[in-house]
């Protein structure tokens, strides 16, 4: 247990420190970095899904006036490390998926680079490819671990026996779609290789972590850490896709090294975002729930089938939240993968929890319906007093409070459970709900420096602000840790010049960096007291993943949805989304609300719209632009409300905070599906809920 900081700056809805710069357009993003006469890159991509390059003809491209370099596997530098096959680009003629980078053109203008790329002729020895995911494949395998290190399978008790003894059973298969992150700012970089003095690479990169980015680049190119600087003050959205470097970073660094002294720029096109920037695997979720008549769960099993790429494994931890969410006498979770000729999947908006709270939360709704029980009550009835997986006590768990407050605010009481019986002006109306959860995680390494400078406290840490609010909330934490006025605190982030900080991922950033800042502040006050002198400086670090390993630490939430389905056309509208969350102390209500409603909106998008239509004949996403790959737009979003309960958790960290970046998306899609069922009587188990799936069930 830690002694919680007294919140004075924390808890205030201070405006974003970077807001004005962003609104005025003076915040500089990676591609816009002002450099002298930059050159521009355009990647070359494989047009076969599997095979071997037999020839590359760059003559016509190189003949264009203004083309500076055409780098392919034939002339690219050999990387120092090829352990990560996604990043080991241009190292061999092998092609592992359609769209894989096979070269990069560098030219005086981006238009010219693109024109030259069109002129490069590549011939292949094309081989048969296989990219169809199904639960029936004979080659499914169990990965050693699932992201980021969870057990692949778990078993507690005798699921089959408990299922057989259950009065009511739900046994269904659910599926979530392949989905691609499309931050407004695509993956983009400016890179400069200064050949003098042994060579130094400066990389302005859009990344969720300058230090992890630098480490990866150094490892790939065999460079010492001090020879690479990564700079990233602002990120136009990441959502996990910028949590690890992708091939574009390797290409731009190669291009820079091919043109010493000349800055080069590379931004992925929207279409390239569908092959190079990671994505969420489609998931197939076989769910079994068995319960007594009174709603107590006896058996809970979730068997997940997903894909990864043939060249690099990413195993989404979809089955993990089912291990701890509800009580069950017996429980099983499994993950099986198919390694396919597909681009490499990666982190995407709450990996694991987000898809993993779809099947189970829809199944809970189906169970409630089968039992004739209110779905809120069913969840309350299966509330565990300890973590069912580990037996640990909760550091805090206020799911029931979220459910009750959400039901109250939404107007759930008196809900007629019958599906398909409410019609208003041609629209069928229904409501639904689901629970949310997200683990409270801290990364094992971050350091902050506190320095007294010109009467102010300067805090430096190589953290990242993805647009989520780090520029604003870290000063609030530092102010309280130093017992200083927040206006007297300046925080500097987004540069490897500042001390090491962990990736902004797993909703762990504020927790981890904040903990380092608190420690640095303690060191500072311990050394210099309350009257420091100019230049006084102290560091503090986080060097373990948790302050407390005796408790299960999670944030919880409940989401309520009103859905309307047009009785003729099956169009779905969601006029109301309401979430209540229990996430420890909220550092800044303004940025927090923005994160919650952003997450919920992404959940709506997952529920109704997002779907990468995979064309297995050619091995690519057919609808690979934002005209065809639909994300929720303003007109789809009605009244979205995020509320939170005042949660005191003395175990998580000195700030008493849990992560809030991802929980908003968890459970939303299930709540939408459940509301659509209540409206129409049609249960859609495969996302997204498009009208073609509803029409056959409408009168």
């Amino acid at each position, binding site marked *: 247990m830690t002694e919680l900081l007294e919140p004075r700056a924390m808890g205030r809805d201070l405006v974003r420190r970077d807001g004005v710069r962003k609104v005025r357009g003076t915040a500089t993003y990676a591609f816009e970095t002002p450099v002298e006469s930059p050159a521009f890159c355009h990647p070359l991509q494989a*047009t076969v899904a599997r095979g071997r390059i037999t020839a590359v003809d760059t003559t016509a491209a190189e003949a264009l006036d203004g083309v500076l370099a055409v780098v392919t596997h034939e002339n690219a530098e050999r990387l120092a490390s090829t352990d990560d096959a996604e990043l080991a680009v241009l190292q061999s003629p092998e092609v592992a998926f359609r769209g894989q980078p096979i070269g990069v053109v560098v030219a005086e203008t981006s*238009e010219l680079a*693109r*024109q030259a790329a*069109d002129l490069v002729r590549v011939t292949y020895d094309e081989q048969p490819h296989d990219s169809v995911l199904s639960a029936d494949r004979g080659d499914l395998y169990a990965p050693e671990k699932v992201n980021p290190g969870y057990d692949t399978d778990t078993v507690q008790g005798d699921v089959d026996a408990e299922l057989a003894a259950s009065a009511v059973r739900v046994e269904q298969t659910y599926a979530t779609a392949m989905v691609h992150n499309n931050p407004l700012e695509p993956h983009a970089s400016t890179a400069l290789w200064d050949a003098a003095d042994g060579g130094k690479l400066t990389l302005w990169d859009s990344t969720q972590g300058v230090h992890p980015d630098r480490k990866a680049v150094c490892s790939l190119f065999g460079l010492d850490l001090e020879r690479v600087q990564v700079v990233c003050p602002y990120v136009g959205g990441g959502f996990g896709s910028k949590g690890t470097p992708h091939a574009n970073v390797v290409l731009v660094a190669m291009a820079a090294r091919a043109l010493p002294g000349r800055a080069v720029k590379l931004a992925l096109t929207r*279409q390239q975002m569908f092959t190079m920037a990671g994505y969420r695997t489609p998931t197939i979720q076989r769910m079994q729930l068995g319960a007594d008549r009174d709603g107590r769960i006896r058996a809970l099993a979730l068997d997940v089938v997903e894909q990864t790429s043939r060249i690099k494994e990413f195993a989404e931890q979809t089955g993990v939240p089912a291990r701890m969410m509800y009580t069950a006498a017996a429980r099983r979770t499994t993950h099986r993968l198919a390694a396919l000729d597909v681009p490499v999947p990666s982190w995407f908006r709450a990996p694991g929890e987000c898809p993993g709270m779809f099947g189970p939360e829809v199944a809970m709704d189906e169970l409630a319906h089968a039992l004739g029980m209110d779905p809120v009550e069913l969840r309350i009835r299966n509330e565990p007093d300890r973590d069912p997986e580990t037996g640990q006590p909760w550091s805090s768990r206020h799911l029931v409070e979220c459910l009750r407050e959400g039901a109250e605010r939404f107007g759930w009481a008196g809900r007629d459970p019958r599906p398909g019986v409410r019609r208003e*002006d*041609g629209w069928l109306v229904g409501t639904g709900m689901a629970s949310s959860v997200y683990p409270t995680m801290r990364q094992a390494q971050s350091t902050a420096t506190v320095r007294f400078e010109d009467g102010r406290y300067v805090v430096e840490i190589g953290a990242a602000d993805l647009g989520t609010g780090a520029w604003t909330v870290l000063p609030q934490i530092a102010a309280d840790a130093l017992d200083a006025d927040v206006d007297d605190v300046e925080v500097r982030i987004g540069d490897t010049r500042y001390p090491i900080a962990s990736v902004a991922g797993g909703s762990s950033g504020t927790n981890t960096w904040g903990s380092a800042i608190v420690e640095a502040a303690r060191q500072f006050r311990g050394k210099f007291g309350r009257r420091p002198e100019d230049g006084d400086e102290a560091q503090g670090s986080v060097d373990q993943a948790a302050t407390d390993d005796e408790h299960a630490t999670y944030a919880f939430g409940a989401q309520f949805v009103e859905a309307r389905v*047009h009785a*003729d*056309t*099956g*169009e779905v*509208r969601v006029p109301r989304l309401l979430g209540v969350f229990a996430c420890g102390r909220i550092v800044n209500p303004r940025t927090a609300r923005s994160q919650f409603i952003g997450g919920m909106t992404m959940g709506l998008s997952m529920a*109704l*719209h997002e*779907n990468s*239509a*995979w*064309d297995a*004949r*050619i091995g690519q996403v*057919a*609808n*690979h*632009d934002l*005209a*065809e790959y*639909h994300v*929720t*737009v*303003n*007109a*789809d979003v009605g009244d979205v409300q995020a509320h939170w309960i005042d949660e005191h958790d003395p175990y998580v960290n000195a700030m008493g905070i849990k992560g809030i970046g991802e929980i908003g998306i968890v459970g939303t899609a299930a709540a939408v599906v459940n509301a659509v069922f209540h409206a129409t009587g049609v249960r859609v188990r495969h996302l997204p809920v*498009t*009208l*073609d799936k509803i*029409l056959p069930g409408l009168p």
Partner: protein
Amino acid sequence: MKPFAYARPSDVAEAVREVAAEPNAVFLGGGTNLVDHLKLGVARPDLVVDVRTLTSREITDTGDGGLLVGAAVSNSELAADRRVRERWPVLTQALLAGANGQLRNLATVGGNPLQRTRCVYFQDVTTACNKRAPGSGCSAIGGYTRYHAILGASEQCIATHPSDMAVALTALDAVVHTEGPRGARTIPFGELHRLPGDDPSRDTVLEHGELVTAVELPPLEMARRSTYRKVRDRASYAFALVSVAAAVDLADDGTVRDARVALGGVAHTPWRATRAEEVLRGRRLTDDTARAAAEAELADAVPQPGIDGGNAFKVPLVARTLTAALRILTGREG
């Protein structure tokens, strides 16, 4: 992007001459479709002739209750015109159902109906497409067909025309005014677009160098009772899965004296539903009538199998959307 020459002639005649003289030349209007295609490498012209300032930006009364709309009038301007809103509400609704505010400010009445048919494979130069590369094959057949045709397609091409405005103009019997190398002519709107047949590379009957100068809206009293019902995969900013432009002339007893119906999202052209109109005439407007009309129109429909279940859902969806549209016109629930 392939480099091209850019010309800005001073009048229509010169623009026509310049494009006619260069086999690989194109007109540039609002650019909302062409500029995308230039970037994607789908359009690879040698010469781009900018006509945005050459044709009229006026909407004038023709004296018989109709309007003559200059080709350079923007979609936004046309949608906002009081006469259009009152006398042809289906057109305003169709315009506002398309794209977004920024695009509608750029898009022109002359250019919007001439946007290319839409297909993810047409837009991806790494895939086979008979429209883009004649003879290379059709990647859409058996592929991602959600937005593709169920009527009038060929083995060469199953793409659909994406313009919402064009669906309304088809229902309204609009007339296209053009100037070309062989002089001026008028083309009934319903004859402007063509089915793919053996030559999907051509979307319209316009000759090379023929420029749309105006679109004429003839008087149509029944259009005061008209509507555009668009069904799409999200609430805004998406192409139609299916759309219906409909106008009816109802007798006092509710019998349909006359009707105009056109469909979007179902064919290589905006689809005038003459069979449906025939069924509607003389009947009372009920849901059953609407279904019968749709069934008559879709008697020859051929759904396309494909990814995520293909597009067979469009057959019932047309009937349901027509039902919904006709309900709106009779003041029943929407």
